[in-house]
C-alpha cells in the first residue's frame, strides 16, 4: 500500500464520517421537530442509526483489499498488546525460541546428511551396486564389489548405460618436488567415473579412456578443496607434476567445489588400473570397488534389482568357494550415500526428541496464553458487545500467537546459528563427517519458518477458541470471582501441563537410556591396554618397496631404531590396530568336514610382529606367542583368539590343529595353530567379538600397517622422536596418523560425546520447560483463588493446610502426567536396541531414578507458589476486587 493511496483513503474515510454525522444530526433535528428534547432526540437518532463504528468499518471494507488492512491492524494491535506485558511476552518468546532453536539446529544435520546436494546430471537415474556381506555387522549390504564381478556386471548394458568403479579410501603421500610430503586420502577410479556423473572438471580435463593402462596412469585430478588449500588455487596447476607415493603424476584437472558425495569425497583421484590378475578367480576375494552406474533409458530400479540378483545367484553357482552366501544390492545414488553414512536412525531419534521439546514449549505457551485470555475476558466481552464477530476475535488472538511464534522463531534462528556452530565444530571426528558441511541453509530456514508457524497454531488455537467462547453478559458483570469459564480454562491448563510432564518424563527416560547405552559402549572392556601406546600408520609405496623382502627389511630397521628411543618398552607392527576392525577372510580347518551347509568359515585376519601381544596387552592363554624364528623359512603358524576356539573348536584345545586362510594374493597353504590369545572387541564402539587369526609378520609382511610403541612415559612425548626416526629412514614417507591409542579410540568414538551432550541438553531443556509449566499452572491457580484462600484462612484454616492443599493439587497433576509418561516409556529399551545395532540398553534402574528426579523437580516448582498461598493475608484477599 503506497503512502499516497493511504492518504487518499484517509480522506475517503473522513468523508464517510462527515456523511454519517450529518445523517444522525438531521434525524435528531427531525425528532426535535416532533417535540422531543434535544438530548433525547440525539440519543434516539444514534440508537436508530445503529453501531456507527461497525457501519463505518463495513463501509470502509468496500475499499479494502479483502482483509489485508484488518490483518495489519491485528498485527499492530498484537504488537502493542505484547509490548504492554513484557513479562508474558518474554517468557513466551524465549520458551518458543528455545524449542525452535533446538529444532532448527538438529535439522541442519538432517539437511546436511539426509537431504544432501548430490552433484551430477540426472542423478535420480544413477545407482550404486554393492555386495551383501553375509558376515558383516554394520550395513552389510554396502560392501564393495570384486574386480571380476565389476567386469561381469558392467557388461549388462541392457540395464546400465554406463558403469564406473571407485576403489575408495586409499592413503598416500603427496608432495611437490622439493617439499615436505603430506598424507592424503584418495580414490582410484575408472576413467569414465566423472563422465558417468555427467560432470567435467572446472579446470583441465577428466581422465581419458586409455589412462587405466599401466604406463599411462600417472595422472591425477584434484578436489577443489585440496587445490585451494595445498596449491593456493593456482590456475596454472593443470599440466604440472606432483609427487604421489614417491612417483611423478601430472595434474589433469580440478573438480568443481560442489563435487561432494558424503563419505565418497576424497582429496584427489587417480585412474584405477586393473590388470590380468584382477580377472583371475583369486581376485574374487578382494572386494574393494564401489560401482557407480547410470541406468539405461526406461529401466526401473526393480528391473535392475531383479537382473542383479540373477547375476549374484549365477556367481554363487559358478564360484561357490568365494561367492557363497554373498549377495548383491542396488540402491539409487542418493539412497546409497545416505544409507552408507548410517546416521539416519540417530538423526531420526534426535528429531523426535527435539519435536517433543517443541511440543512441551508449545504447551507452556498455550498455558500462558490461556492465563492471559482469562485476564482479558472483559476486554474481549467489550469488543464483542461492540460488534466484533467471534471469527474476528479468534483471528485477533491467533494473530497474537503467530506474532509470538514469529518473534520466537527469529530469536530461535539466532540461537540456532550458534547451535549449528557448536555442532559443526563437534562434527570433525573423521574425515567423512568433517567433509559434510553443516550450515544454516535455505532448507533450515524454511524448516524453521514452518516449525514457527506450526508452533503458533499449536500454542494459540485452543486458547483462542476457548477465549472467544466468551459470554458477554456474565463476563461483563462478573468480577472474575472464579467464574465457570475460568475453571474451564484451568481444566485445559491442567490437561496441558499433565501432557507436558508425561512428554518430558518419556523424553527424559529415553535420553537417559540412550546416554547410558552409549556410555557403556564407550567404556566397555576392549580386551587390550589402551594406555601408554603411541601409534602411527604407514603405507609403503610400490616405487621403493616393491617386494615383501624390502618391506620386511624396512620394518626390521624401523623397529630396531624405535627400540632405541628412551622411554620405549616395546615396539610392535601390525596390519591393523586392535579394536579397529580387521579384514575378514574365508578359512578352512583341516579334519573338519568342509561345511556341508552353505556356511563358509571366516575369521578376521591380522598380521603382527612377535612383540605385538605384549605391547598392546592382549594376554596369551595357551600355547606360545610368535618368536623371531617364525619367519618365511619356518613352517607357517598362526595364533587364534578365544572366540575362534569357541566357534570352530567348541572350546576344545586347538593347539597343533591346521587351518588355511584364503587371503587374496597369498599362496594357499596350511598353518598350525600354536597359541590362543584373549578376545579383543572387533570395533572399539561395538560389543561384539569375532573369531580372529593372527599371522606372524615375517611370514606375510604387508605394505599397509601400523606401528605401536609401548612406553613407560606419556606416549605423546615420543611423537617427535618417532617422526625423527621415520624421516631419517625415509624422508619421503609421511606417517598417516601419529597419535596415542587413547586418542585413536576417542576418535573412533568421537560421535558419542556429541550424541550424549545433545541428548543431555535436550533432556534438561524438557525438564526445565515442564517445570516452568507446572510452576505457571500452580502459581496461576493460587492467584485465581486468592479470595478462596482468604476465606479459608478467615474461617480458621492453618497456613500449613493451605500450602499442603496447593501442593497436593499440583503434585496430582505431576504424578498423573509422570505415570502416563512412565508407561509409554516402558517399551523404549527394546525399541532402541532394534534401532541401534550393538546398543545394549537393559538398564531398568533408569526408570525409578528418572521418575524420582522428575517428581522432585515438579515438587520444587510447586513449592514456591504453595508457600506463597499460605502467606495470603486474609483481610487483604477479601478486600481485593
Amino acid at each position: 500500500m503506497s503512502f499516497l493511496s493511504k492518504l487518499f483513503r484517509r480522506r475517503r474515510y473522513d468523508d464517510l464520517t462527515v456523511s454519517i454525522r450529518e445523517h444522525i444530526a438531521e434525524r435528531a433535528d427531525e425528532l426535535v421537530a416532533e417535540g422531543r428534547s434535544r438530548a433525547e432526540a440525539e440519543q434516539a437518532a444514534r440508537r436508530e442509526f445503529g453501531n456507527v463504528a461497525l457501519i463505518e468499518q463495513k463501509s470502509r471494507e468496500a475499499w479494502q483489499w479483502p482483509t489485508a488492512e484488518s490483518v495489519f491492524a491485528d498485527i499492530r494491535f498484537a504488537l502493542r498488546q505484547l509490548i504492554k506485558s513484557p513479562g508474558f511476552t518474554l517468557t513466551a518468546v524465549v520458551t518458543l525460541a528455545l524449542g525452535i532453536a533446538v529444532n532448527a539446529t538438529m535439522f541442519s544435520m538432517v539437511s546436511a546428511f539426509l537431504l544432501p546436494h548430490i552433484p551430477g546430471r540426472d542423478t535420480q537415474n544413477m545407482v550404486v551396486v554393492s555386495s551383501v556381506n553375509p558376515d558383516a555387522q554394520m550395513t552389510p549390504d554396502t560392501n564393495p564389489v570384486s574386480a571380476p564381478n565389476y567386469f561381469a556386471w558392467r557388461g549388462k548394458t541392457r540395464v546400465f548405460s554406463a558403469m564406473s568403479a571407485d576403489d575408495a579410501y586409499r592413503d598416500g603421500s603427496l608432495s611437490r618436488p622439493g617439499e615436505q610430503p603430506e598424507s592424503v586420502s584418495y580414490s582410484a577410479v575408472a576413467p569414465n567415473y566423472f563422465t558417468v556423473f555427467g560432470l567435467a572438471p572446472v579446470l583441465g580435463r577428466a581422465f581419458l579412456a586409455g589412462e587405466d593402462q599401466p604406463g599411462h596412469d600417472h595422472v591425477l585430478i584434484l578436489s577443489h578443496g585440496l587445490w585451494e588449500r595445498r596449491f593456493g588455487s593456482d590456475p596454472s596447476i593443470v599440466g604440472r607434476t606432483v609427487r604421489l607415493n614417491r612417483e611423478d603424476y601430472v595434474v589433469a584437472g580440478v573438480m568443481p567445489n560442489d563435487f561432494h558425495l558424503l563419505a565418497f569425497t576424497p582429496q584427489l583421484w587417480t585412474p584405477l588400473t586393473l590388470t590380468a590378475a584382477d580377472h583371475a578367480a583369486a581376485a574374487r576375494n578382494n572386494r574393494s570397488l564401489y560401482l557407480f552406474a547410470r541406468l539405461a533409458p526406461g529401466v526401473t530400479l526393480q528391473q535392475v534389482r531383479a537382473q542383479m540378483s540373477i547375476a549374484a545367484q549365477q556367481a554363487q553357482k559358478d564360484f561357490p568357494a568365494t561367492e557363497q552366501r554373498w549377495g548383491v544390492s542396488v540402491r539409487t545414488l542418493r539412497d546409497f550415500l545416505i544409507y552408507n553414512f548410517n546416521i539416519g536412525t540417530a538423526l531420526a531419534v534426535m528429531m523426535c526428541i527435539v519435536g517433543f521439546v517443541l511440543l512441551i514449549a508449545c504447551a507452556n505457551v498455550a498455558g500462558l496464553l490461556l492465563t492471559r485470555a482469562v485476564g482479558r475476558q472483559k476486554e474481549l466481552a467489550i469488543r464483542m458487545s461492540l460488534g466484533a464477530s467471534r471469527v474476528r476475535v479468534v483471528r485477533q488472538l491467533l494473530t497474537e500467537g503467530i506474532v509470538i511464534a514469529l518473534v520466537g522463531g527469529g530469536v530461535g534462528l539466532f540461537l540456532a546459528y550458534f547451535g549449528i556452530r557448536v555442532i559443526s565444530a563437534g562434527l570433525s571426528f573423521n574425515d567423512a563427517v568433517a567433509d559434510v558441511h553443516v550450515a544454516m541453509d535455505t532448507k533450515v530456514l524454511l524448516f524453521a519458518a514452518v516449525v514457527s508457524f506450526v508452533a503458533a497454531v499449536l500454542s494459540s488455537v485452543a486458547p483462542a477458541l476457548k477465549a472467544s467462547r466468551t459470554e458477554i453478559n456474565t463476563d461483563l458483570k462478573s468480577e472474575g470471582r472464579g467464574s465457570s469459564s475460568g475453571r474451564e480454562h484451568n481444566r485445559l491448563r491442567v490437561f496441558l501441563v499433565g501432557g507436558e510432564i508425561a512428554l518430558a518424563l518419556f523424553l527424559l527416560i529415553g535420553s537417559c537410556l540412550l546416554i547410558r547405552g552409549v556410555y557403556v559402549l564407550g567404556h566397555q572392556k576392549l580386551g587390550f591396554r589402551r594406555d601408554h601406546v603411541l601409534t602411527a600408520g604407514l603405507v609403503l609405496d610400490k616405487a621403493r618397496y616393491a617386494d615383501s623382502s624390502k618391506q620386511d627389511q624396512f620394518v626390521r630397521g624401523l623397529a630396531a631404531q624405535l627400540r632405541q628411543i628412551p622411554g620405549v618398552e616395546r615396539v610392535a607392527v601390525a596390519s591393523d590396530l586392535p579394536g579397529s576392525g580387521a579384514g575378514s577372510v574365508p578359512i578352512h580347518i583341516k579334519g573338519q568336514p568342509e561345511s556341508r551347509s552353505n556356511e563358509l568359515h571366516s575369521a578376521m585376519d591380522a598380521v603382527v610382529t612377535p612383540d605385538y601381544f605384549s605391547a598392546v596387552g592382549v594376554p596369551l592363554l595357551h600355547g606360545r606367542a610368535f618368536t623371531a624364528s617364525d619367519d618365511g623359512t619356518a613352517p607357517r603358524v598362526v595364533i587364534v583368539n578365544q572366540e575362534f576356539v569357541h566357534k570352530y573348536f567348541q572350546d576344545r584345545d586347538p593347539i597343533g590343529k591346521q587351518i588355511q586362510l584364503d587371503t587374496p594374493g597369498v599362496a594357499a597353504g596350511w598353518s598350525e595353530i600354536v597359541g590362543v590369545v584373549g578376545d579383543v572387541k572387533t570395533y572399539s564402539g561395538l560389543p561384539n567379538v569375532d573369531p580372529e587369526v593372527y599371522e606372524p609378520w615375517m611370514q606375510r609382511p604387508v605394505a599397509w600397517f601400523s606401528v605401536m610403541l609401548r612406553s613407560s612415559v606419556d606416549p605423546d612425548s615420543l611423537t617427535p622422536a618417532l617422526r625423527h626416526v621415520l624421516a631419517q629412514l625415509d624422508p619421503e614417507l609421511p606417517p598417516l596418523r601419529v597419535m596415542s591409542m587413547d586418542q585413536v579410540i576417542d576418535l573412533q568414538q568421537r560421535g558419542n560425546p556429541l550424541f550424549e551432550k545433545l541428548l543431555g541438553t535436550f533432556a534438561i531443556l524438557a525438564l526445565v520447560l515442564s517445570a516452568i509449566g507446572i510452576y505457571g499452572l500452580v502459581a496461576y491457580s493460587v492467584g485465581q483463588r486468592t479470595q478462596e484462600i482468604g476465606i479459608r484462612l478467615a474461617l480458621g484454616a492453618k497456613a500449613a493446610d493451605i500450602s499442603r492443599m496447593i501442593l497436593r493439587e499440583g503434585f496430582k497433576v505431576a504424578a498423573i502426567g509422570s505415570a502416563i509418561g512412565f508407561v509409554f516409556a516402558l517399551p523404549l529399551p527394546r525399541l532402541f536396541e532394534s534401532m541401534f545395532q550393538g546398543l545394549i540398553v537393559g538398564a531398568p534402574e533408569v526408570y525409578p531414578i528418572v521418575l524420582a528426579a522428575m517428581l522432585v523437580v515438579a515438587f520444587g516448582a510447586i513449592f514456591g507458589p504453595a508457600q506463597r498461598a499460605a502467606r495470603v493475608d486474609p483481610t487483604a484477599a477479601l478486600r481485593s476486587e
Partner: protein
Amino acid sequence: MAKDSDRRDLFPGALELMILQSLRFRPMHGYALVKHIQQVSDNLLQVEEGSLYPALQRLLREGLLDSEAGTSAKGRPTRIYRVTDAGLRHLEQEVSSFEKMFAGITRVLAVDQA
C-alpha cells in the same frame, strides 16, 4: 447492536438498484436518500443505515457514483452523491435484467396458481 439488514434485502443488488434510480435525476446526501426511498415506496421499503453506507461506498469504488462536498438542507456539511455515466449504463442494464427476472418470477407464480 447491528441489525441484520441482509435478511430484509429483496435480492442482492436491489438496494444498489434503488440508490442509482433515486439519484438518477437528483443528487442527494445520505439522509435525504433514506427519506426519498421511504416516501416513494409509501413506507413499504425502509433502508437500513447499516446497509446504505456500505452500499454507497461500494458504488463509489466501482465508479457508478460520484460524491462531492455539499451542505444539507440545514446547512451542515455533508457529501452529495450523484450517478456517473457508468452508473447510468449499469442502472439500465440492471433494470432490464431485473424486469426480465421479475417477468419470469410472475409467470412461474401464475403457473403455480393454476
